């Protein structure tokens, strides 16, 4: 992994980092991938990937009507809101 790859990765993950810290981050990631790469020694061609240990399929709930108005409760958890909306910095110029 080089600095450009890391910069892209940080952007994808929406994580900020100072450029001076890039070598340290790359080193740490390389160490972990060094461990992970031991998987390459295994013969896995004949195996199907496993997503979920119980191999469950999607469960859907029955459609039911309810009149639950908990807007206020959820807006109360927001760092910034007005009466009806979450407030964020201007998106459209």
């Amino acid at each position, binding site marked *: 992994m080089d600095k450009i790859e890391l910069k892209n*990765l*940080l952007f*994808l*993950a*929406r*994580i*900020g*980092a100072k450029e001076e810290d890039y070598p340290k*981050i790359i080193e*740490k*990631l390389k*160490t*972990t*991938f*060094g*461990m*992970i*790469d*031991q*998987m*390459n020694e*295994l013969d*896995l061609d004949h*195996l*199907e*990937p*496993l*997503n*979920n*240990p*119980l191999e*469950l399929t*999607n*469960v859907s*709930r029955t459609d039911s009507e309810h009149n639950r108005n*908990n807007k206020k*409760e*959820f807006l*109360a*958890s*927001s*760092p*910034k809101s007005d009466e009806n909306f*979450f407030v*964020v*910095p*201007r*998106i459209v110029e």
Partner: protein
Amino acid sequence: MNFKDIRESFRNKEISAKELTQDSLDKAKKLSNLNAFISTFDKDALKKAQHIDNNFNDYKVLALGGVPIAHKDIFCTKGRRTTCASKILENFTPPYESTVTSNCHQAGSIMIGKTNMDEFAMGSSNETSFFGPVINPWGDSLVPGGSSGGSAACVAADITSLATGTDTGGSIRQPAALCGITGLKPTYGLVSRWGMIAFCSSMDQAGPFARDAFGCAALLDAMASYDAKDSTSAKRDKVKYEDALRNDFGKLKIGVLKGIDQLGISEEVLKAYDNSKIVLEKLGHTFVELDFSELSSGICSYYVIAPAECSSNLSRFDGVKFGHRSDSSNISDLYLQTRSEGFGEEVRKRILIGTYVLSAGFYDAYYRKAQKVRRMMKSKFDEFFKTVDLVFLPTTLDQAFEMNRKSSDPNRMYKEDLLTIPANLAGLPAISFPNGLANKLPIGAQFVGNYFSEDLLLNITHKIQEVSDWHKIIP
């Protein structure tokens, strides 16, 4: 006092719920140096205790009636702060209650507080918490294990007799072993994940901590339920785990691993393990040697799948709808700065690993391959359970270690989970219990069972604890 004695004393009116609660709150304060709690709720707890005492006849019949409990701060509690030990949720008060805590409230327990943990359950030493590390009650400079370190320390120090935890790669069993108590990771799907802050959804599973299997059985009775709000909840007939402690499962065939002494396990842990095998033999059980040479590849698979799911699950923390928000004049910087300020180093690292292994070009090389290793692990256990009833192995490679000793070497820290991760990858239940003491520190061993065999796991641990005293030793 252990859970059984506490409940008995309450039921016999020898002690009131209020006295029990006050005692737990006093101990929590006295032992605040352990940093086991992120929040305590003195007033609410005493109010509930008073309510229970006023309605004694309704509560004396409940599984956890009148018993103080501590919950890992990963479970959302309505109207009470839930932080997941992260700065990003430092001031978050959920508008809803998790199914686990709700079930425990309904079973008559009294929540005295929320326990410290590794940030977002990512860690094996409780050193990644934004609220500082938890200290192991067995030694001031020792880690309690993680990620449910606060819950384990709380029970080990006798602050409460019960606590909840979650286990994604060993986060109940490893701290149970390092703190000298009993902890159970149930089958994936047995306990609802609703309201439990997600780290790795396909492996996260909540479970009980107690001094012994009896306490774990009673708490699991309360925690386990089918929940339509969790799409991976298992719909099954309700089992009474406490009653199952009295069952006779007969003579069991127990699987032990060939070449276990080649895995880097300490001499002390191996000695305790061998001693436990003697106890099991005396109880009439027999051993079958199993070849599990693939065991160590579990770590590789786990450290791809868990970060992948973590990067997806933690994308919801953007500073808009809840949690910490940084002051930024545009939305892009708001996301970036909020997440950089709000997440600790280990969490940021795992998000980066997860984003990398899920990105185009690397998906097949990492994520898909890790899922195949996961299949291999599950197939291996499926094969084992054709010939044995249980698999028996140590819980950890070593005993509680010094703070900062492994945090500077992440791969060494990740290896902490070597013996616990396979059960998580396969979704199997496993129980860790104290089975020795060396250098004045506890040691743990674990049984891994087939799917939904918690009754058997609790039963055999209970039988061992009837003829041994390791679980009774308090630091």
